[in-house]
């Protein structure tokens, strides 16, 4: 192998079923030790590219073209299964997206790492392989590697499991490492650590890297070169710094613009990509506005500006964003504890603190963001605000309704006043109901004809044509489904809208559209918005005030810009640095 031979060379790769071509003849090379990002939206063909290289395409798909590893190996697409088995895990290795399911739940992780060395006989015996596995777990910076090796996957966190996957992939010192969305399922701070680890490990060993992601920030963090994929073609190929700052292809330009949550147009809306599939509402002209009478009755509110405060270690509890008079939401000393299932035979079940002594207000018309990582308590807080869960102690008033101990009958009115949009647009719509029935479901005591008219108007308001009413949820894309969820939430004319990770499952271009739609509707309907997310960028764009929640406590709260630019709490600082803006990224890459 001469130094000029690329580690991976893909030529005119076409993948598809007999009826449908999914990859349209893509070609690229990766030099030895080069770190290349492959970016694109879901369905663009990123994962197919990687599975083709690994020879793990589903049986139903056929591939043509040539894939060469190291220049010396014959075409991988026509190689025998035996030959591929010898290459997989040895010369080339892969890390997958889902750390929860990618490991065998019934096998200790050390044994799973050792297995890859046993399969390829790179260690002499079981004992040596086990020993090496512990060393490898130490290399990926797992605390107590010897103990971790004896753990089963369910005993490790998502980030730890992804470290195990990485240890496994790197065990035989492969020349090529493929990573498919390795950090997408992880919390932002964990994501930053794992990315840094991947970058360091491949740089140390001179491993060539193909990193698949939908997130430009991830590529900027780790890669030297980036390939942009769009509908089965590679549309752009260049150094990360150049592509970030001077994208050539129109798609890349739009992708970067849509990813940039800090850059908005003159209406304060995000740049979106023209997507012919979805009709954009013509300035919401046909949408039902709150009637003049309602507008006149609404008191004219002085804009409330939150104080920027933080929780001191061991300090007294703080009432964040305190509003004089009656705000939309008033939470005082809210705690929620759970009894974990089980416990000893005689010992009581252990208590888990979901929320501890949380106090804050949300003013009417405020856009209040709650940001935190998994397990922080943000979902518990959201559920209590929507009266889907009860506080253990403390007082929660939403629109004057006390949540603690309220019966479902007392909450009837409340339910139509406070509506929710959930994260998963796939799971939160009943697959057997038609869109018309889904959107109309929250309406009570409304005649058929009126319901029909209101559904139609509401769908128009979220940018969907009236003829979607007779279709079922599976016939829509993720973004369209989220529009349906928003239509369902708004049809009762709520005063408070709670969104739980409402855009986290969407592609960046669709995310921008849905965020713009939310911003429009919040203005138009004069909603109080509570937006719960792990993504500081999204919150920064959409919310005027943000509360940072960690370990069941609000640790910092204030005007979004102020929290973002001058974080007071160390945890917030960590969070902010893990989610850099586009400008910041470009600066880091060029530097």
């Amino acid at each position, binding site marked *: 192998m001469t130094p000029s031979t690329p580690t991976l060379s893909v030529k005119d790769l076409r993948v598809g079923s007999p009826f449908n071509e999914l990859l349209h003849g893509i070609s690229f090379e990766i030099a030895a030790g080069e770190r290349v990002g492959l970016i694109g939206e879901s369905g663009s063909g990123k994962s197919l590219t990687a599975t083709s290289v690994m020879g*793990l395409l589903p049986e139903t798909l056929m591939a043509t073209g040539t894939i060469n590893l190291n220049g010396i190996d014959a075409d991988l697409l026509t190689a025998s299964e035996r030959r591929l088995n010898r290459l997989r*895990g*040895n010369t080339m290795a892969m890390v*997958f997206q889902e750390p929860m399911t990618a490991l*065998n*739940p019934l096998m200790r992780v050390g044994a799973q790492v050792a*297995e890859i060395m046993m399969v390829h006989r790179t260690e002499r015996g079981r004992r040596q392989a086990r020993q090496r596995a512990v060393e490898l777990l130490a290399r990926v910076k797992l605390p107590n590697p010897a103990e971790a090796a004896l753990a089963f996957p369910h005993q490790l966190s998502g980030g730890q499991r992804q470290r195990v996957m990485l240890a496994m992939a790197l065990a035989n010192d492969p020349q090529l490492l493929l990573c498919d969305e390795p950090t997408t399922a992880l919390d932002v701070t964990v994501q930053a650590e794992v990315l840094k680890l991947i970058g360091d490990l491949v740089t140390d060993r001179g491993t060539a890297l193909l990193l698949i992601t939908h997130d430009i920030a991830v590529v900027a963090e780790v890669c030297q070169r980036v390939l942009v994929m769009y509908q089965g073609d590679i549309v752009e190929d260049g150094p990360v710094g150049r592509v970030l700052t001077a994208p050539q292809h129109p798609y890349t330009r739009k992708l970067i613009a849509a990813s940039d949550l800090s850059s908005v147009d003159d209406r304060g809306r995000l740049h979106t990509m023209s997507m012919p599939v979805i009709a954009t509402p013509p300035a919401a002209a046909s949408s039902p506005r709150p009637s003049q009478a309602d507008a006149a009755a609404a008191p004219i509110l002085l804009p409330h500006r939150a104080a920027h405060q933080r929780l001191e270690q061991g300090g007294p509890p703080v009432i964040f964003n305190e509003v004089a008079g009656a705000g939309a939401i008033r939470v005082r000393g809210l705690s929620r504890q759970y009894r*974990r299932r089980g*416990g000893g*035979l005689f010992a009581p079940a252990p208590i888990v603190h979901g929320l501890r002594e949380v106090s804050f207000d949300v003013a009417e018309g405020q856009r209040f963001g709650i940001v935190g990582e998994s397990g922080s308590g943000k979902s518990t807080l959201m559920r209590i605000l929507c009266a889907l869960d009860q506080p253990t102690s403390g007082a929660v008033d939403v629109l004057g309704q006390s949540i603690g101990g309220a019966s479902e009958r007392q909450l009837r009115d409340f339910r139509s006043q406070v509506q929710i949009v959930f994260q998963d647009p796939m799971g939160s719509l009943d697959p057997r109901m038609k869109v018309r029935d889904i959107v109309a479901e929250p309406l009570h005591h409304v005649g058929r004809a009126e319901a029909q008219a209101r559904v139609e108007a509401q769908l128009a308001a979220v940018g969907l044509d009236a003829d979607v009413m007779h279709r079922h949820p599976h016939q829509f894309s993720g973004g369209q489904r989220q529009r349906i969820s928003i239509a369902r939430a708004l049809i009762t004319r709520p005063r408070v809208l709670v969104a739980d990770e409402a855009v986290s499952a969407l592609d960046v271009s669709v995310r921008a559209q849905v965020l713009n739609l939310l911003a429009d509707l919040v203005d138009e309907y004069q909603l109080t918005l509570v937006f719960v997310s792990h993504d500081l960028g999204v919150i920064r764009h959409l919310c005027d005030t943000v509360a940072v929640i960690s370990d069941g406590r609000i640790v910092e709260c204030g005007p979004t810009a102020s929290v973002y630019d001058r974080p007071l709490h160390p945890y917030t600082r960590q969070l902010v640095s893990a989610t850099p803006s586009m400008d910041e990224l470009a600066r880091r890459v060029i530097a």
Partner: protein
Amino acid sequence: MVLVVLRRLGVFATTVIVASVVTFLMLSILPGDAARIALGVQATEADVAAQATAMGLDRPAIVRYLDWFGHVLIGEFGTSTVSRQAIGPEITDALGITVILVLTSVVLALLFAIPFGILTAVRQRKPDGAILSGISQIGVAVPGFLAGMLLVTVFAVTLRWLPAGGWVDPGNDFGGFLEHLILPAIALGSVQGAVLSRYVRSSVLEVMREDFIRTARAKGLGAGRALFRHGLRNAAVPVMTVLGLQIATLLVGAVVIERVFSIPGLGSLLLDKVALRDLPAVQGIVLVLVVFVLLLNFLVDLAFTLIDPRLRSVS
């Protein structure tokens, strides 16, 4: 781990006690007085009263229950009101026969279902896989007694290779025991094997789609090796649930096959005793059956705990 086992054992013991109370109450509440049933409709009131005293029926229910259950715990099931002999030995003999029959049929069913199920799953898209899958589908549809009668017609009546029915104690004549065991065990096991192979197939198909199988392939394991090293243990979990339920049904369901082959098993004994209105015996047999089903559940739970580490930690 020990704690988990102890807890499951506790649950098992509790359910056994509850089951014994229910069994006792059900048969006490049933219309008809045990003493009168024992003596028949012609008996005088005085005879019935004397019989009731002899059977201890004049004592309060709680005392009767404790007396009965206390004796059951040391293996005494009381005296038959019909034969006037201890019921215990009769039940143990019949139970032994049924357990041998059921276990043999389950082993046969597993020997068939595991390879067959895996094969039909792996060859799912191939013509042979589809044909084999169709065969097992037919097997599911055949009732056990029909399979039994067919087997008797072919192997006992026409070919005269094996006896058509009856039972030989393995202690007396082991060869004869096997000869008498084989046809009923196949009749009982074939249907179970067909059902089980469907579950093995769907379980293996499911596991083959799992991410960790893809991980194993990416490590360089071949498709077969990935399935054997990582798939089968995972596939075993749902199959075991079905297996436990099947054995439980077989204990009682074996009665049909026992009748076809004239085997003196527990199901046959239960039917006889019901026909004779021998209440103490019926009570004893029902309790034994219930306890066996509970014991099976306990063992299946325990096996789950052994296979799946996620069930081992208490929290």
